[in-house]
């Protein structure tokens, strides 16, 4: 009986750790001339604003473990662990490449929500639609609404 309670306690701790821990990562704002600005941080609201639309070589990259998010405009709420990317959104996750009009990342659930002109490229197929959700931890994919797919051998 004691062993059972101990196992339950361990499982609860692991579960709690999984829920509360945010991913570690690095954001790069690149291709910006030294005298120009591509990023601002509101220290009172703890929100990063990245915008490289005015720079030909400008790109924002967020690298978290095996996931890389690329965008032209990105907003990141560090306290809420919430990220929103618009314009030129591309997400690379292992052998999957996803492009869309916009993407929202929710750190609490480790989910990325893609909206508008979504294209999911994989080794064995290509899918297009309007709404798509990817769990970055489990790599579980959810397609919403009308979706079309092409499968390759």
């Amino acid at each position: 009986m004691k062993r059972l309670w101990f196992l339950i306690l361990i499982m609860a701790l692991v579960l709690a750790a999984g829920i509360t821990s945010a991913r570690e990562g690095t954001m790069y704002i690149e291709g910006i001339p030294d005298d120009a600005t591509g990023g601002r941080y509101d220290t009172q609201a703890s929100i990063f604003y990245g915008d490289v639309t005015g720079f030909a070589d400008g790109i924002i990259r967020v690298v978290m473990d095996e996931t890389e998010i690329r965008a032209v405009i990105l907003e990141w709420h560090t306290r809420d662990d919430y990220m929103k990317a618009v314009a030129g959104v591309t997400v690379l996750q292992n052998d999957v490449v996803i492009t869309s009009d916009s993407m929202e990342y929710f750190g609490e659930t480790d989910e990325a929500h893609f909206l508008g002109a979504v294209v999911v490229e994989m080794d064995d197929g290509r899918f297009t639609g309007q709404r798509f959700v990817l769990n970055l931890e489990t790599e579980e994919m959810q397609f919403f609404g009308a979706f079309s797919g092409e499968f390759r051998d």
Partner: protein
Amino acid sequence: MISILRQRWLPLAVFVFLIGSVALYFLLDPHIPEERQTAENLQPVMSFDHAILVGRRAGEPQWELRGSNMVTDNGDVVIETLDELLLLRSGGAPYRILSSSGRWNAQDGILVLPNATTIEEEDGFRTEAGSLVWQRDDGLTVLEGDVRMLQDRTLVSSGRASFQPDSGMFTMFGDVEITWTEGDDDL
């Protein structure tokens, strides 16, 4: 007869007039010796030990500059030993700026801290830079040289940045790297 006398005495009179003019010029010399002129133009030098400069707007203190050793220099204040600059805020704890030395231009309201500088705030905001320029009128703080800002487990690295204490907006110039971890807050 008179015309003969005039012809004889005229050159002598001209000669005496010229000699007199030269003598008068040296006697009434307006030229001030160089060392005397320099001394008259010099500003008095004042030095302060453990002094506090306080900036006010509409009677309310906006900032406090504390220095152990300050000397006036042609209208500027040379802060030979800077203890701290406090940027006071009505809605929160002050930002505390630390560095070794600096120069304060009261007329333009510009403080230059040319050496390694730190900005701290008790809620955890901390920034380090190679140098800092603070503009009193708009409160803008320009940071240069390996700028590193830390808050909420997030470390921002940039070559140059500016910080607006009133709004709390931190603006990065050029390429930027932002890292967030689950570790402690040490820079």
